[in-house]
């Protein structure tokens, strides 16, 4: 089969780049003719693709063949390019959703465009329930989204064959290790345990292969590396810049997996000492747990197993474009441009309208959280646009209920005279009529984004949120704890 895989970036050892490389590698092994395209290309990933006989091409400038058996896109930018610019025909179009929070990984079309999509020719794949939930929350009538978990290719299966009774070596795999993880190096040296950080800013930066990890007794990481370690039978401690649950256990694995092993199942950050104690004390049971789970993980995350379970290579006979007409293409392009615009600082504007969207070369780099800015050809800087953070702008503290906002408001009140604040009613709701007549006023209270954008579009807005279940519970108990008369007032 003739297959095109595309990803926004193919340059660094990051999640979606490696995912694309692993897919390409598997499909080449299966005898398919695989091409790869991206907006941002470079080493080391170009060299990795060269090893499997593929030279990635630029999605902006390459003249792609019009007809394929399978076109596989990741991220909204490649979807928009392939389906609104190149308008490729294929027997099947797959789109991967690889993150619940990165806007570039959002659903690449709005609800309104769904009727204009050949749904029988589209397969949407999410790598976790969290990712799927984010997509369906954005567009409730989204076509069915299936799971393709992060891949654990065959070389990982059962790769860890030697085990020790005591923890003697630890590898950290991270491109953004938080300080408390970096600080483990000193504790490891104190206790005579070998310690190595693999990733950008670490001791070395290279692709994570079984050879890179299997000599270590344990790994600290998140994301794809966890799937690798599970399939290898290598104990993995889940922790990074979002905190994390620590050792995987029968009790926490389902919840951790549902959050892509990102650490977001707990958001629990702790001190280096605490992490180190947990790591050492829990090593033996963790080793037993991983040994018991390695066959399960190979079956669940193996590339071929997942492809087969999903029937991804059982393609219909006829090739066709995914989007049915110009109106749908325009809706998709407008949707993607809207998301890209939301990613940009206020002093940057888009240089292409939705109907002439032409992505180009980019020097964009990933930030510490893996969010990717769009290709720079989407945007141009303007010298006159207002910058964020200008002090004379209206300041708004958007007080979301039951999120600690009263504490913030009272601290602000301690620093400013009463007449600097916009008037609020007894319940703390902002009176926007007052705000409109007071430049530079401090707005602190219950309000909404709609009011802010309508009345103070250039405001500096700050807000604080709470775990939604905790917030809701607090709200309910607030309602239950006041008399009806008081609530009416």
């Amino acid at each position, binding site marked *: 089969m003739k297959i095109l895989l595309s990803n926004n970036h193919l340059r660094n050892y990051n999640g979606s780049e490696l995912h694309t490389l692993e897919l390409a590698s598997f499909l080449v092994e299966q005898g398919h003719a695989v091409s790869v395209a991206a907006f941002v290309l470079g080493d080391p990933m170009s060299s990795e693709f060269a090893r499997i006989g593929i030279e990635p091409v630029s999605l902006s400038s390459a003249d792609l063949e019009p007809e394929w058996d399978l076109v596989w896109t990741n991220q909204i930018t490649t979807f928009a390019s392939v389906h609104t610019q190149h308008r490729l025909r294929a027997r099947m179009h797959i789109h991967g959703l690889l993150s*619940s*929070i990165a*806007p570039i990984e959002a659903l690449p079309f709005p609800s309104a465009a769904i009727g204009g999509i050949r749904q029988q020719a589209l397969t949407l794949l999410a790598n976790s329930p969290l990712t799927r*939930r*984010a997509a369906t*929350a*954005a567009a409730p009538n989204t076509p069915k989204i299936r799971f393709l978990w992060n891949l654990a290719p065959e070389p990982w299966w059962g790769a860890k064959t030697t085990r020790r009774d005591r923890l003697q070596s630890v590898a950290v795999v991270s491109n953004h290790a*938080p*300080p*408390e993880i970096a*600080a483990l190096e*000193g504790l490891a040296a104190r206790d005579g345990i070998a310690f190595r950080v693999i990733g950008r800013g670490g001791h070395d930066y290279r692709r994570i292969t079984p050879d890179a990890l299997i000599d270590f007794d344990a790994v600290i990481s998140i994301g794809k590396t966890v799937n690798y370690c599970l399939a290898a039978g290598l104990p993995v401690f889940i922790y990074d*810049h979002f905190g994390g649950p620590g050792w995987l256990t029968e009790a926490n694995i389902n919840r951790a997996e549902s959050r892509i092993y990102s650490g*977001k199942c707990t958001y629990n950050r702790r*001190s*280096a000492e*605490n992490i180190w104690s947990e790591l050492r004390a829990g090593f033996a049971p963790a080793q037993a747990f991983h040994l018991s789970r390695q066959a399960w993980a190979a079956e669940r995350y193996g590339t071929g197993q997942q492809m087969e379970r999903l029937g991804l290579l059982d393609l219909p006979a006829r090739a066709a474009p995914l989007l049915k007409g110009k109106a749908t293409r325009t809706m998709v392009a407008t949707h993607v441009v*809207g*998301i890209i615009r*939301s990613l940009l600082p*206020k002093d940057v504007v888009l240089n292409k309208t939705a109907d002439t969207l032409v992505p180009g070369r980019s020097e964009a780099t990933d930030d*510490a*959280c893996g969010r990717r800015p769009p290709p720079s050809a989407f945007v141009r800087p303007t010298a006159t646009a207002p910058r*964020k*953070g200008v002090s004379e702008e209206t*300041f708004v*503290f*958007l007080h*979301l209920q039951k*999120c*600690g906002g*009263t*504490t*913030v408001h*009272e*601290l602000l009140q301690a*620093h400013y005279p009463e007449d600097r604040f916009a008037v609020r009613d007894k319940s703390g709701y902002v009176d926007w009529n007052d705000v409109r007549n007071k430049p530079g006023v401090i707005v602190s209270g219950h309000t*909404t*984004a*709609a009011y802010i954008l309508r009345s103070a579009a250039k405001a*500096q807005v*700050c*807000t*604080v*949120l*709470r*775990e*939604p*279940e905790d*917030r*809701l*519970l607090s709200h*309910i*108990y607030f309602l*239950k*704890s*006041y008399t009806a*008369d008081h*609530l009416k*007032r």
Partner: protein
Amino acid sequence: MRVKEKSISEILDDPEIGAWLGCYYLKQLDPGFRAGSPANTDRALAFLAGCEVVGTFDDLPGFIRRVFSLLKLEPPEAIPIANSRVSLAGRRGFEPVEVKDLTTSERARLTAFCAEDRVIFERAADLAAAARPAQAPAA
């Protein structure tokens, strides 16, 4: 409906109250939200991304430090938590009810009820984590 006597599940299952309490973050943060139409996650996420400072309740001191820095104020030495159940005791109209442990089904109901807001919260937590200065390792 008298909320005081109702269980969590009864409150969430009540169409009127459930609709009022549901999708709270979405409705507050979607600039295009109008009563009677569904809120839009993309718009809410975009609004959140444009905020100068986004924080989470579990790191309220960090959020307050960043807000004070934005306002060019000295960060507060102490952060007295306001509006807690203890601080509200004795206030007129406040008749606290006992906070009960949730049952497994109530917890599941709560989680399902908050699914859309969780997307917003996780983005907020991500923004807050990215803005958080490096933590000093424990001594």
